[in-house]
């Protein structure tokens, strides 16, 4: 489609405006992590690295980061295995009740977090009598992480069809060889993208986590706890700045390797 020069300039300007609107607040976060004023007076009267030093020595923050990473990796891994199995079962095998099962698998991502949180809390704490720990957080996160893996893998399976699997077995490959040499390489991108997205979902989850974590603190919970404590506020800006930078990495990986059309 050809756009007139004026329209093109307008669209270009609008795009820049939207991008600025999205990212300028993040710039403030990063900037404030160097702001020497404790109240974040703007513009900054001076720059300092002291908040970064304080953050580096904040053991609670490190601890929370560790917990978050463990939850993210475990939930994403579980989701990868379960979501892939579910996608294969529903896409490649005759299963009774495909539609309702598919709906039930994808539902957790649309359920309000507060509902999932209450439901999980009731189940773990009141019904099963478990202590709320990292383990319960992992299970809770897995329920919605499965969805993104399931959707990604199912879409890929639908798009690739079964022709290559047939060609592979036609050329003498056993079921295992076919999976290893044909099916898995084809799914690699979808698994990578699904896994990273699942990790990202888990990483910043607050609501469900709050209901299932007990006294354990993940990073988002820790930030939330300390946000309104004046002493901690500068350190939170540092943590947020670090997370912003870290968040770019998985997105970049997913875009770079997510689509493996040769």
């Amino acid at each position, binding site marked *: 489609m050809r756009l007139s020069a004026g329209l093109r300039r307008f669209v270009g300007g609008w795009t820049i405006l939207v991008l600025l609107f999205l990212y300028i607040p993040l710039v403030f976060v990063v900037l404030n992590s160097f702001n020497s004023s404790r109240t974040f007076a703007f513009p900054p009267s001076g720059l300092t690295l002291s908040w970064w030093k304080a953050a580096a020595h904040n053991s609670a923050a490190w601890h929370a980061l560790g917990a978050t990473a463990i939850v993210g990796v475990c939930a994403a891994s579980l989701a990868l295995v379960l979501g892939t199995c579910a996608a294969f079962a529903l896409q490649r095998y005759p299963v009774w009740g495909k539609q309702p099962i598919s709906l039930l698998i994808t539902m957790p991502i649309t359920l309000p977090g507060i509902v999932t949180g209450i439901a999980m809390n009731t189940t773990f704490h009141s019904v099963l009598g478990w202590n709320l720990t990292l383990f319960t957080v992992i299970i809770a996160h897995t329920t919605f992480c499965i969805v993104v893996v399931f959707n990604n893998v199912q879409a890929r399976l639908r798009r690739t069809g079964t*022709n*290559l699997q*047939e*060609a*592979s*077995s*036609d*050329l*003498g*490959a*056993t079921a295992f*060889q076919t999976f290893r*040499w*044909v099916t898995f*390489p*084809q799914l690699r991108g979808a698994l990578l993208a699904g896994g990273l997205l699942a990790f990202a979902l888990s990483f910043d989850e607050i609501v469900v986590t709050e209901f299932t974590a007990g006294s354990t603190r993940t990073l988002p919970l820790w930030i939330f706890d300390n946000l309104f404590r004046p002493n901690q506020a500068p350190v939170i800006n540092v943590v947020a700045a670090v997370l912003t930078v870290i968040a770019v990495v998985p997105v970049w990986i997913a875009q770079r390797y997510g689509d*493996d*059309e*040769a």
Partner: protein
Amino acid sequence: MASPTTRPANGSVTLRGIRKTFASTVAVDTVNLEIADGEFFAMLGPSGSGKTTVLRMIAGFEQPTEGTVLLGGVDVTTVPPHRRDVTTVFQDYALFPHMTLRENVEYGLRTRGVTRGERRRRADEALAMVRLDHMAARKPAQLSGGQRQRVALARSLAVRPKVLLLDEPLGALDLKLREEMQVELKAIQRDVGITFVFVTHDQDEALTLSDRLAVFNNGRVEQVGPARSVYEEPANRFVAGFVGTSNILSDAIAQQVVGRSGTWAVRPEKIAVLGDSPAPARATVREATVTEVVYAGASTRVLADVGPVTLTLTSLNTGGVRDVQRGDRIRLAWTDDALHQLTDADPTDRRDTPTEEITA
């Protein structure tokens, strides 16, 4: 063809009483076929006639509901595809997109545990056979349709199967490329000497490529034989109409036009337009009015009304033939040899027949 007492050679394919039903539809209905070792065999039919299902049963992707499949005289009916000495060139080629051409061609050797060096040597040899050895490091996405087709062929042949199956092998190529590949396929088949079984809906392709062909319709085999005999002596109305074009005259019309009872087929190219020359001996001559003239480059197709029916006739544009115009009165002539009697007379029995139906 092997007689029941001699053991068939290695690359023979035998289908005995094959039936295949999907839910309530019958895809293949009692097919018996005997394909000899080293034969170039075509399964020709319209879409939905069961030919592809039969091919898939030979490959092992489908299991017949009834009947047996024998390869080289051995019953393989329940043997899975990866343990059959048969490979397939798929209609969409099904090349592995994440592998280079060489890796694609090596694949069947890899599954068989052939060592790396040997694998590479044989893959390069197979690629050289289809003249793509200079592109061995490319990925399928970088190739044209014709090149992909040749890679698929090399990949299937690299494992030296006893039987090669081809599913509409030239279907996705444009006309020029099809004609080139037809010649190439024929040469390759002669070179490697193994059995080729291919499926096509294109009667030209079946006639040009195959030693013998089977014409499929509604899940059954209507006729099996060498190209020439299927074309010259079609067994029934369906074959006469599907393989080439036929003027089919039945009952009352046959009586009036050729003076015989029964159903008769006349090929359009066997009807001559007489100029002022006298009719040849033992020929039927009919007066006709030209209703349509279709110029098609190498040949011209003329529709001529002889009274009870309109006949289609074709003549090569070799020059020296008088031009006919719409509305011209002409004399048509054909010899008795041009008439071929068909056994099935009931047209309602055969649906989806692309015959030029002749109605009174």
